[in-house]
């Protein structure tokens, strides 16, 4: 029996790194992203790194009509079905404030799209009695900050959804890992000022794989973000509202 991983957002730096990590374990892959040309390259790469069956599917997280194709592709395998959700978008908060319609896109990409997909997937996982979902949240979801509170709100909503989904899938032997990455060195953060302790996508991918093996519930990656966020969360609101961190 070979396990299958569905990777949503396989063209992102983290998604690509995790797909490779899973390929090296010999799992089958269903790779989904918007850019078909790029996806074809990642698919070939994963094959050469050890995945015997790689299916590429072009999809848009804002169009749930396309989700069924991914589920069908995964259904052909005989092992457990797993999914890792890397999609999301983070426009600058100032852009969202200038054009509030952007808020809906952020929420669609980071919350409502992934939620619709995972709700469609859950019955398949329950039927097979296992499998793991990795949901990429964010430290931004731990507290609303002036710099990215719309994105943070979407991620906070996603954290809550993942917590409930974990509760649900646990009954049938499945599991959900909530991941809160700090700064990761990706195209999204390249050249942004003020970043520190930036982790490579490969380090994050390894953390995710270990978290799946150990059935961790919520992880921060790299680990020290747990303590950074502990401090940020414990600042009293009367003080926090005057800060700009």
């Amino acid at each position, binding site marked *: 029996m070979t396990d299958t991983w569905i990777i949503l957002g396989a*063209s992102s*730096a983290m998604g*690509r790194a995790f797909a490779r990590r899973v390929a090296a374990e010999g799992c089958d892959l269903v790779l989904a992203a918007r*850019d078909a*040309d*790029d996806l074809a*390259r*990642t698919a*070939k*790469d994963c094959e*050469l*790194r050890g995945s015997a069956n790689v299916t590429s599917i072009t999809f848009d997280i804002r169009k749930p009509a396309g989700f069924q194709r991914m589920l069908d592709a995964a259904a052909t395998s005989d092992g457990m079905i797993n999914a890792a959700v890397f999609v999301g978008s983070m426009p600058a908060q100032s852009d969202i404030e200038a054009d509030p319609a952007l808020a809906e896109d952020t929420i669609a990409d980071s919350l409502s799209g992934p939620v619709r997909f995972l709700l469609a997937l859950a019955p398949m996982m329950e039927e097979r009695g296992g499998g793991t979902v990795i949901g990429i949240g964010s430290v931004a979801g731990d507290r609303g900050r002036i710099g990215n509170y719309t994105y943070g709100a979407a991620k906070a909503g996603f954290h809550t959804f993942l917590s409930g989904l974990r509760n649900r899938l646990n009954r049938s032997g499945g599991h959900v890992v909530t991941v809160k990455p700090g700064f990761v060195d*990706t*195209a999204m953060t*390249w*050249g*942004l000022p003020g970043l520190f302790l930036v982790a490579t996508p490969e380090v994050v991918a390894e953390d995710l794989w270990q978290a799946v093996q150990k059935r961790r519930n919520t992880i921060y990656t790299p680990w020290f973000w747990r303590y950074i966020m502990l401090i940020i969360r414990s600042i009293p609101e009367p003080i926090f509202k005057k800060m700009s961190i």
Partner: protein
Amino acid sequence: MRWKETDYSGWGRAIVSRGRIARPEKLRDLMQVMAESPAPACGNRRSYGDAAQNHGGSAIDMTRMNRFLGFDAETGVLEAEAGVTISDILRTFAPKGWLPAVMPGTGFATLGGCIANDVHGKNHHIDGGFGAHVESIELLKPDGSRSRVGPARNKALFHATLGGLGQTGVILSARIRMARCGSTAMRVRERRIDALGEFIEAFEASDARYSVGWIDATATGDRLGRGILEEAEVSDTPVATPSKRPASVPFDAPSILLSPMVVRLFNQAYLNRVPAAGREMLRPMQAFFFPLDRLHDWNRLYGKTGFHQFQCVVPPAEAEPVLRRMLTLISASGQASPLAVIKRLGPQGNGLLSFPREGFTLAVDIRNRGGVGDLFRQLEQLCHAAGGRLYAAKDSLGSPDVFGASYSSLPEFRKIADQVDPGRELETDLVRRLGIRGRR
């Protein structure tokens, strides 16, 4: 595509440039960057000097373009994006029975970097340079067009691209022929060598596929040129790979670390490691080919001001007297690093600016401090007078006159580079410093 404005340098950290760097993760983004602002490409910047720098300008970091694109298990031909590292190729394909036919001394070097510097390995005397195993290269030219070059197609441009320092376009991907291997281990023989003359003889008598010598650059007199000769073959018996995590140097070392006395003590210990009767052992490939990669950021051992490397090749007939004079100068200066490397090179390949040619190559690190310029100049003159030449991938102090005089295909190279890149948008700091593209 966002640009990152930053200070950056090569592995030696002696020359710092300021400029903006783009790091595309997809071909589409890379094409867009080139369309908007053509710029030279760089990889993991393992060149020691300024070969991968463009002060005041732009550069394209290729390290995220790092996917395998195809592999033929019958012929061992691998196609990959230019940002794939040699170590990644070795780790992925050696268990399947294939290894890169030529590997430089660090696994962090990228495929694109290996081509652009036509790197050589410990088997150059038998297998030639990296370029001898390249089937084709896909180039992205400053005008936005793509072209595939190889020994059978666009031969002139192919030869200009091997060792061409990125001046013929951004290397997008390449097909390389790999070599078979029966395991992921090397059978290594090590023995002590007492003096330089013995080294040269030992290399000439050796029939090992892989060979390299470590020289104690502090030794003088009768012991000048003493060291360790390492010979190896791919083993047919496997070896357990230790899963030791690499250590890293967390900060810039204080200058006392490489003071002459510490270096002398280190060298004595390094030599004594190998018993007088020599020894033979199995070693994992990664450890054999990339001995220094186990210590991440080891360049910080040279402190904040960095270091230079002098690497030259000298024709066989001149090798012993010339290397003797070089080593005498180096040990007298007291500025040498612990180890120098000596290696026999085979006939030169097809790259117009490829470094390797028949003879012996000597490489030594020198700390970046007062007096280094004078020492370097003397070494460079010795090399030049003997009909040798310097290696651009290692260079940070060379002079344009000597470089120009020692690479006879330079005029031909200039013509081809100017056809591809008439606006000279791919020039790097090194190319300007050594006058490689010539006067406008």
